[in-house]
């Protein structure tokens, strides 16, 4: 796994505002599922928008495949095929009342021939399991449906990296399941996924790497170790995932084997199924 995208010593402040990022470092490895965690206002969305080229760092740089991102028209154009951002509110991205037309926007901008555009639209809609909505008007869709159509709009650009800001916010359990299922399909198709969230339970269950944005910087590591650290989580104003807390206790009680590291409810239950008897000291 090599770094497809890197933030190198990135400083950023909105005009007239306090610094949001100071020396932020992040590496997005190809094929990984990275969760970027932080409280509201921590700067995780800002970091995502720097990675996608939507914001230009005040200092430091974004590296794409080892080369610094060029903020020229052509450089940004190439970059948009490397990484696409899906915003939290789907209405921030859906500008057309026709679902099919909206999803075709990116490919049309790439200047592709019409038949290729058509293929990409069909492919993206199918990957997100919203093919049946293609001919419905955007304003008649439910929130969850609009969210998946917005993701399809980004996917039709066939980006190597898909960055999603709070993709499960506002969705009910079955909506979350649908969204995560769609993401799993994208991962299987080879897309690198970056998800900004403040849901620590989701991050632990879903990600294979975690980056916690705190105090303008980034702490990057394995989910299970980073999300166990009470100091870090306090500083970041986040909770510890319940699976870790409960898992630790059950390990101490001998209900879980010593090496068990459950990441979600299912794995916790499964590991309990065959409890290794605790040896007497």
């Amino acid at each position, binding site marked *: 796994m090599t770094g497809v995208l890197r933030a190198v010593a990135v400083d950023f402040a909105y005009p007239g505002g306090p610094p949001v990022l100071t020396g932020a470092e992040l590496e997005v490895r190809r094929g990984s599922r990275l969760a970027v965690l932080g409280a509201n206002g921590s700067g995780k969305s800002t970091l995502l928008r720097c990675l*996608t080229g939507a914001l230009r760092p005040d200092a430091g740089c974004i590296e794409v495949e080892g080369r610094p991102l060029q903020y020229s028209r052509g450089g940004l154009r190439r970059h*948009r095929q490397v990484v696409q951002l899906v915003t939290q509110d789907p209405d921030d991205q859906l*500008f*057309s009342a026709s679902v099919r037309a909206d999803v075709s926007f990116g490919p*049309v901008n790439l200047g592709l021939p019409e038949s290729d555009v058509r293929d990409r639209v069909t492919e993206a809609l199918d990957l997100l399991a919203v093919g049946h909505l293609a001919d419905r008007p955007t*304003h008649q869709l439910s929130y969850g449906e609009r969210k998946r159509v917005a993701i399809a709009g980004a996917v039709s650009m066939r980006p190597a990296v898909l960055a999603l800001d709070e993709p499960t916010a506002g969705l009910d359990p079955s909506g979350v399941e649908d969204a995560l299922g769609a993401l799993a399909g994208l991962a299987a198709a080879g897309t690198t996924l970056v998800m900004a969230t403040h849901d620590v339970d989701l991050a632990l269950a879903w990600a294979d790497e975690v980056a916690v944005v705190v105090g303008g910087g980034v702490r990057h590591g394995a989910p299970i170790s980073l999300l166990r650290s009470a100091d870090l989580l306090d500083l970041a104003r986040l909770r510890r995932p319940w699976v870790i807390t409960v898992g630790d206790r059950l390990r101490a009680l001998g209900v879980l084997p010593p090496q068990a590291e459950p990441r979600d409810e299912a794995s916790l239950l499964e590991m309990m199924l065959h409890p290794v008897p605790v040896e007497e000291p």
Partner: protein
Amino acid sequence: MTGPAIDVAAWSSPWRWKSPGDKLLLSGGLVLAALLLPTWPASPAVAAVAVGLALGPARVPARVLARAARAAAVFVLLGTATIAVTWRSDDGGFGPTVTGQSLAAAVDTLAHTVAGTAAVLLLAATTPMTDLLAWARRRGVAEPVVDVAGLVYRMLFVLLATLGAVRAAQVARLGYVDRRATMRSAAPLVAAVLVRAFDRARRLEAGLAGRGFAGNLGVLDDERPTSPRFVIGTVAGLTVLVAGCLAVPTSGHVPVLPW
């Protein structure tokens, strides 16, 4: 956030897949027939054809037509009543009154309006706005204008939802109990929707920038093929309508035509 009944009908219409140009020909032909031919029998004939097509093959729900008629009713009734009232009575006195002549003029206008509105509804309730805009773009209407119109269409649903939500919140806190409260509520409502509109534009700009927005809102355009059968049927039907209306002698009263 489903929107006006006509819009809902248009998106689920069995005629949706017909070429917008074909439907424009039919509706436009009916509108012109109602406008240009002698009121009797053309207006009732056009109204009957338009409503018949809408309720029949185009399967527009009757409820949708009824609501549309209600929407147009306030202006039509007020305007028609004003025409019906004249300044001199039949016996020569001066003052507001209703005469046979003024009443006939009012009935004529009412017939025109019903026929014209029905003809426009036939198009509106079978053709989503995005199809009409795409048609306009292909026919050479300037791209920025079509783009802006498309954005107006998309965003008006978002803003209508905002308007409804803010107003509901105000109602809950007694925002419209009396005239003074209504005035206190209306201005913040307008300001809130306007600020939200600005905010939406800014956020959409940021959202689209990431998708390669460089000034052009071009999208895939699925042109619906024109149907020779539909066009021939339309032309033949309109011809019959025109010939029939011109052949039938104007019966009953002689309408007062102001032109």
